[in-house]
């Protein structure tokens, strides 16, 4: 991962990409718990992520919203979606565009929409990886290390916030009511966070201790 990927021209096809958690895929699968206290963990590698900074009151923001087909969320925790893109609020003038589309293409389109106005569009797909934690016990697993109130009265599907899980800074996005959470840790912290979650999931294998 951290090794330089330069290769001599004509020395063969480029090596396939390795995700930050490829080496833990089997352990994450084995850690899955089924039943009423079930919880599963999996990595979704290579999600396109584009960091976007622009003044939300500017003309450029209007052009970017038109390009993405969705309004930029204006409040902490809010997300908007359109086609392959999901827009996540990171700060008052900063967003993360999550997408199934090709990263270079998305960054290129947004760069054209920005058209040299103050702001920035950067493809940061390699900055973070995606962990999906899902199942009836998923909230209890996160509550062991997340300072946020994740109860449905305060946190529901469609909310995404930057916070910490254990000591790791993550972007935490709740996708549905299962509940399913997607965690976006920086790649170099992903190994630690995955092991932390595997450990936190272990107790749900046994019966509940009253």
């Amino acid at each position: 991962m951290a090794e330089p990927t330069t290769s001599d021209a004509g020395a063969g096809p480029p090596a396939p990409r390795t995700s930050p958690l490829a080496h833990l895929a089997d352990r994450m699968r084995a850690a899955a718990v089924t039943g009423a206290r079930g919880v599963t963990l999996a990595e979704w590698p290579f999600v396109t992520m584009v960091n976007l900074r622009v003044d939300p009151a500017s003309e450029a923001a209007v052009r970017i919203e038109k390009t993405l087909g969705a309004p930029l969320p204006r409040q902490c925790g809010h997300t908007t979606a359109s086609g392959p893109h999901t827009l996540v609020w990171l700060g008052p003038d900063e967003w993360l565009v999550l997408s199934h589309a090709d990263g270079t293409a998305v960054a290129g389109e947004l760069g054209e929409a920005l058209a040299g106005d103050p702001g920035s569009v950067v493809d940061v797909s390699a900055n973070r990886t995606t962990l999906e934690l899902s199942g009836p016990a998923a909230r209890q697993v996160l509550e062991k290390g997340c300072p946020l109130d994740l109860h449905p009265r305060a946190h529901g599907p469609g909310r995404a916030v930057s916070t910490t899980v254990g000591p790791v800074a993550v972007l935490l996005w709740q996708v549905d009511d299962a509940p399913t959470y997607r965690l976006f840790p920086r790649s170099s912290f992903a190994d630690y966070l995955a092991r932390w979650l595997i450990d936190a999931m272990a107790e749900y294998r046994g019966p509940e201790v009253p």
Partner: protein
Amino acid sequence: MLLISCPWCGPRDETEYHYGGQAHVPHPESPADLSDEQWAAYVFYRDNSKGPFAERWVHSTGCRRWFNVLRDTATHEVLAVYRLDGPRPAPPQAGGNR
């Protein structure tokens, strides 16, 4: 544990923030004209008052924005939170009901 309300993200635990020292320390108008002693006073010397104290915090694991907090250094009570471009709130009067 302090509970600090980020002006953009709302109430979060102190562990999500980092401290930035005393607020409202103006940068010298002409740093080149200062003596070493004056420069040292600007760089290193800070108030250490008991009671309401304006200080800078950054929401480092959240929106990564700097803002100011008025905190009582004796009770740790967070009296006010305000943006860098917002007005500085008046410190509560001694003997007030707090």
